């Protein structure tokens, strides 16, 4: 068994070296397909981190009507506190809201200054407990607050996060289909290249068959050749992903004006890197098996 493995690796390495042009082409093609696979994984990971952060920071904003009385405000505070959903409650006065607006949108600050009165209402910002951010009770609390005296509107940003999660979920499903297509493309490329190797060595295969060589010796080198091509393709894909990550990450953070933080964009974890390498090897192995099945 060990002799067969040593033989298969030796022959595969020799074959890859002899046809290094075609081998390189196969590695680059498989690498491109695996790069797309890895990119989908990378985007999925970062989107997950980002949405988790946004989910944890989900807030309920309760906008107060002009002239809301202290009694009405106290009732709002009691309702929020009694719900058990709140991790914190802060009151934002109308002046403070205007100051924040000027800070966040300096270009519009001058226009806001020309208004005869402050158009922004006072509000409560309710920080939700992260573990209960998806609790249906939040919707009930929002509805309850909306009915209360002194409240003009209630905004719950969990809804758009949910919508975003739905979109990301749909994109992940589409990405899964895309990933399967690219994996098949990588597999077929490797099959074609290994088949060429098989064709070049048909005389050897015929002799091996005639001397009664075990199937492991006949097919083994081609399966190993496919595996090595897939593995090399995965390494190329990882190098590409690494480059994209280190060059692209600061630029994306800059382009999103702080909406996306550096910490939101994570590179693949060690387990995911290993999975990508193993995936490349498996795809290559499958390609080698498909090509080698004609040699018996």
């Amino acid at each position, binding site marked *: 068994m060990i*002799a*067969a493995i040593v*033989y298969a690796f030796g022959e595969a390495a020799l074959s890859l070296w*002899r046809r290094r042009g075609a081998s390189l082409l196969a590695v680059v093609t498989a690498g491109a397909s695996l790069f797309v696979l890895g990119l989908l994984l990378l985007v999925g990971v970062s989107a997950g981190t980002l949405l988790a952060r946004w989910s944890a920071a989900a807030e309920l904003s309760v906008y107060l009507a002009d002239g809301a009385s202290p009694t009405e405000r106290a009732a709002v505070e009691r309702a929020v506190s009694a719900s058990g959903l709140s991790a914190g409650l802060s009151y934002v006065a109308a002046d403070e809201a205007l100051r924040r607006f000027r800070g966040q949108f300096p270009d519009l600050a001058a226009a806001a200054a020309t208004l005869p009165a402050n158009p922004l209402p006072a509000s409560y910002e309710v920080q939700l407990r992260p573990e209960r951010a998806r609790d249906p009770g939040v919707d009930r609390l929002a509805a309850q607050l909306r009915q209360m005296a002194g409240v003009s509107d209630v905004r719950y940003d969990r809804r758009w996060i949910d919508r975003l999660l739905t979109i990301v979920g749909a994109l992940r499903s589409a990405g899964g289909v895309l990933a399967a297509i690219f994996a098949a493309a990588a597999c077929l490329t490797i099959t074609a290249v290994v088949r060429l190797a098989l064709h070049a060595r048909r*005389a*050897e295969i*015929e*002799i*091996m*068959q*005639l*001397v*009664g*060589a*075990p*199937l492991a*010796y*006949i097919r083994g080198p081609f399966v190993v050749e496919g595996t090595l091509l897939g593995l090399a393709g995965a390494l190329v894909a990882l190098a590409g992903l690494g480059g994209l990550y280190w060059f692209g990450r600061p630029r994306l953070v800059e382009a999103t004006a702080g909406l996306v933080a550096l910490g939101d964009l994570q590179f693949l974890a060690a387990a995911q890197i290993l999975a990508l390498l193993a995936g490349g090897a498996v795809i290559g192995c499958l390609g080698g098996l498909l090509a080698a099945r004609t040699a*018996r």
Partner: protein
Amino acid sequence: MIDAQQVSKLYTRGVYALRDLTLAVGKGEFVFLTGPSGAGKSTLLRLLLRQDVPSSGHLVVGGRSLSKMSATQVQDYRRSVGFVFQDFKLIPTRTVYENITFVPRVLGQPPAVQRKKAFQVLKWVGLQHRLNAFPEELSGGEQQRVAVARALINDPALVLADEPTGNLDPDLALEIMNLFRDINARGTTVLVATHDRDLIRRVGKRTITLEQGHLTEGRG
């Protein structure tokens, strides 16, 4: 060694390559298989190498029925048979030594055993000084001697040769035949297919003649 009973090989076009062939070849015998082109010589060798199976009849080699064999049994059987072809079937990208050790190597034998066997057979065919040469650097006679050495490296009980002198001049042909005679003298059964009547006469061994798939002479 070889026992064929009513062996027929029918191809899909309805043409019989062999028909009701019955013959016996004893252990340690040297037999020529002759006949004109299309007589069925190559078909019989294909059956004996288990590259094909008879359409009917029984073909037994060394006590093994070739009609009923699993893939593993076919591999095992072929390891007991040496073969030599007219076109040598050497691997052009490998040296003489690599071509010869190829057989024990793919059979998983240790490198030391491969080396020992290779030097033995190369010395025997007189090519120990050409072990690093590639096939294209050798003459036709030398290439065929390498093929003979490769056929012998696994100590086969039976050696099959299909027109082994077809590409060689008469002197080289006789030289190769002498090698086969030496192989036979060591107790190995040898079956040589050739249409060279003159060579058969000069070697002077038992001859089986086929014509249009029928055995016409030398049933045994």
